[in-house]
């Protein structure tokens, strides 16, 4: 039985501000139009690995059951393939909602701790803010060191092949004018 389907939810479990806040952001607007048809779940190539299908995430979000949504692996397993989004008969931006949920979880620090996805997102974010470019090898290595250092051993054969074929450099790529980029991002912080 899937998590969340065996016990009741009560009024205390509902955070009415949750759906309102999601709907106030770009991509979240149409949440209320969902007819629970399940097209998104049927189309989703990752649904078999998720604890809650995309349809259920939409239903729980709309109902304000924030704790259930935030504890779910689903937004972190979403591969951003947009299958659900282009197929939804009610034009709900399911993929964009997944991003809104990820963002909320990272802001509030409520993401499931065992998932490397937020770690990757942060490592990537910081690297780009500092240097303006992402260096694939460095992101991968940092992610591995923070989550599962042993995975580096497993990746070594691929890494070596990529270095040999000139497809992986260990240096940091950077733009010429990181200060200008910093100024853009800082100004966004203030507004």
């Amino acid at each position, binding site marked *: 039985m899937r998590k969340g389907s065996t016990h009741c939810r009560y009024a205390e479990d509902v955070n009415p501000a949750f759906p309102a806040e999601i709907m106030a952001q770009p991509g979240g607007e149409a949440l209320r139009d969902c007819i629970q048809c399940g097209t998104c779940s049927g189309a989703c*190539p990752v649904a078999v*690995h998720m604890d809650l299908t995309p349809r259920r995430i939409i239903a729980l979000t709309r109902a304000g059951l924030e704790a259930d949504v935030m504890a779910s692996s689903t937004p972190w397993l979403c591969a951003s*393939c*947009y299958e659900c989004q282009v197929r939804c008969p009610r034009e709900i931006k399911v993929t964009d909602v997944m991003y809104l949920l990820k963002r909320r979880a990272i802001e509030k620090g409520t993401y499931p701790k065992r998932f490397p996805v937020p770690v990757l997102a942060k490592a*990537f974010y910081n690297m780009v803010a500092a240097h303006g470019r992402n260096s694939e090898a460095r992101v991968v290595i940092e992610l591995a060191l923070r989550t599962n250092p042993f995975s580096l051993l497993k990746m070594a054969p691929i890494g070596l092949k*990529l270095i040999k074929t000139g*497809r992986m450099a260990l240096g940091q790529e950077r733009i010429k004018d990181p200060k200008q980029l910093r100024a*853009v991002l800082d100004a*966004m912080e203030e507004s």
Partner: protein
Amino acid sequence: MSAYAYYPGCSLTGLGKPYDESVRAVFAHLGLGLEEIPDWNCCGATSYMSISGDKAVALAARNLALAEPMGLEIVAPCAACYLVLSKAQHTISGYPEIAARVHKGLQAAGLAYAGRAVIRHPLDVLVNTVGLDAIAAKVIRPLTGCRVAPYYGCQIVRPYSGFDDPLRPQTMDRLLEALGARVVEYPLKAHCCGGSLMGTMEDIGVRMSFLLLKEARARTANMVATACPLCQYNLEAYQGQMRRAYGEDVTIPIVYFTQLMGLAFGLAPKALGIQRNLVTADPLPVTV
């Protein structure tokens, strides 16, 4: 000579180097200019969207602002870059409040963006602007013997691209046929390879990519053509893991559609980065 503003993106300087090399070679051969956007920055990929909405738009918009004075359409070969730049453009034109904040951010750095960017994928430019006739006219070594599974992946056809069907695209099929290749029926052509899950949840990524290759082989393809550096990497570099996880050999060359174009045009394999591919492409009309 028509020219485009070129946004290679981070992947094309690393894992996707053969994509960069073959795009440049093919465009040059067709007499199309590619002028790199000066000091372009990372588009932010999907990670930035997971952290901040406004900043993700601003990060991508710096590139659009840098490209605007060039007065050219932007060509972005990486599927993720193509999606992110398009998404930024859509957000700026559809959400005036966000646009106002982004403009303020750009202004603080001495930049301005009037919102005129047109972002295109090379597949779209080559087939819909250059045209199949002009391409076929350049073919001197038809890809006879190549049975290609045309793999589009997700983000060049969904959700922003207007150049093809988001679920059953055809553009690459027609292009490959114009090169003399046989295109196999491939229903998974726009199915997800797992994207960045390969780096974060490897078992799931491996399964998704495995299914794509198993199907390509079942359809008698002897190679898979891609249009995205992450798809190409996932499908190519993890074939050993797929075999270990599922006890089935799915070895198959994974090439960029632009590499196939270059070969059909008779360009030197080295100029197309063929030697950088990890799975040698035996059925290609050249020996590397």
